[in-house]
């Protein structure tokens, strides 16, 4: 088949893997956005900056405190999530009764402040982060770098665990109920404001986790969040705002589509997701997995 279309199989599989790795980041990031939007009704534009903060938290933990990658993978999401909780308690909280636009403006403003601070401190050129899993597997038909494989596995585990937590556990049923009727859930004796704070912290921690995961394969730079978040928002629009499973599946799927486009028509690889977004918006404005309101 490869001879037929004139593409070397190695290149094909390499792009497929790269697509899956990108899809892994899209999935984890859009999942965090979906969780936050579901309960808070806030479009968290700061998500990209929080992803960048996760990468920098890993970098700072390593260079200043000697904490290795695996420790950072646990610590950085907690640190970034805790900062998210402070943001929710002090700022976001006051916007819930207002239009979505206000949340978007606040979180966008925060992006400018956070990225500015990091640029001031670290410049724009970026910092390298050592690969904790060098080497790779020769699968016969292709060479698979170990770290890429780890990224895919780690993201699948985190996405599945999050889906399970929300769809199959008691805590998750509180969350799903509060998405529908927060006032009623509270009238049953559940402290909804605390749940909202923790949910935001959790969504932000997912972004921080993705940041640490990205540190060894992307340059740790203050601008890394801006580059990816636009694509992730397109993913969320295509999947449908507020759908957990939709966010995950769409993330991986669009990563793959992007990878395949890079094989067959490289010129379109950076725009294909936006073309799909436009088509989905025309045909199914609520997104592939979203419910019409």
């Amino acid at each position: 088949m490869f001879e037929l279309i004139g593409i070397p199989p190695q290149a094909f599989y390499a792009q497929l893997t790269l697509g899956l790795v990108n899809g892994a980041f899209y999935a984890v990031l859009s999942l965090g956005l979906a969780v936050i939007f579901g309960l808070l009704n806030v479009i968290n534009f700061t998500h990209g900056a929080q992803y960048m903060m996760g990468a920098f938290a890993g970098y700072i933990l390593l260079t200043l405190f000697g904490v290795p990658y695996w420790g950072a993978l646990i610590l950085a999401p907690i640190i970034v999530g805790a900062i998210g909780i402070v943001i929710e308690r002090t700022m976001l909280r006051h916007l819930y009764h207002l239009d979505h636009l206000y949340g978007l403006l606040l979180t966008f403003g925060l992006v400018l402040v956070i990225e500015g601070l990091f640029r001031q401190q670290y410049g724009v050129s970026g910092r390298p982060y050592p690969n904790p899993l060098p080497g790779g597997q020769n699968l016969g038909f292709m060479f698979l770098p170990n770290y890429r494989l780890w990224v895919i596995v780690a993201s699948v585990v985190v996405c599945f665990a999050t889906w399970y937590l929300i769809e199959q556990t008691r805590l998750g049923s509180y969350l799903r109920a509060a998405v529908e009727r927060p006032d009623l859930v509270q009238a049953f004796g559940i402290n909804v404001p605390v749940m909202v704070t923790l949910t935001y912290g959790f969504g932000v921690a997912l972004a921080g986790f993705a940041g640490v995961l990205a540190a060894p394969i992307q340059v740790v730079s203050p601008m890394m969040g801006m580059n990816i978040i636009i694509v992730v928002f397109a993913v969320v629009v295509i999947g449908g705002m507020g759908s957990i499973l939709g966010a995950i599946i769409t993330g991986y799927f669009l990563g793959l589509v992007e990878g395949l486009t890079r094989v067959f028509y490289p010129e379109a690889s950076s725009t294909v997701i936006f073309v799909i977004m436009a088509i989905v918006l025309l045909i199914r404005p609520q997104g592939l997995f979203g419910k019409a309101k």
Partner: protein
Amino acid sequence: MAETGTVLKVKDLEAWYGESHILHGMSFEIPRGEVVTLLGRNGAGKTTTMRCIMGMVGKRLGSIAFEGTETIKMRSDKIARLGVGYVPEERGIFASLNVIENLELPPVIKPGGMTRDEVFDLFPRLRERRNSQGTKLSGGEQQMLAIARILRTGAKFLLLDEPTEGLAPVIVQQIGEIIRDLKAKGFTILLVEQNFHFASTVADRHYVVEHGHVVEMMRNEEIGSNMEKLQEYLGV
């Protein structure tokens, strides 16, 4: 707390939704172990009164004392944890939760609530449908579920907002039996009803509400002699 006396005492309650002033000095009392109704036309302020008791109305003034505790400034989750169970007007069954998840959503706040099995014995229909999605149930089943889920919590004071609305007569009868059964078990119940005939089959006393305040209290046995006046109030 003694087993007699007043469970809920509402005094000079005022409430607003945004700019509109809904309650104008509501005052009434609910003695322990009684079923008490708020009767009145649409828009008289009955549902708003319930939402105030539950702490769900933003702007409220006056006094609401539950078991002697002032709750007028309390958050609704704290009020619920004092032992108040709420069945809202539109039943509030969650579409994204199945029957068991809906049933077990309200946390147990006091000992003495029913177990899942006891609830299912009381509502066998819900046991059959326990894995169905909440909003796939019929209206009657949803109402049963809305009542069933607060019986698990151990709350002894229940707020039922129009539990018979839109239901078939045979289901209304069943709900009447459940309410009488709960009263026999020692529950105290505040009921909002449009269906005056139904109210008279379960209640001990009625408060007639007009324009956001109580205009008259009648004991259930006095209803016969006050029928004309009542019909005027309710506009039937």
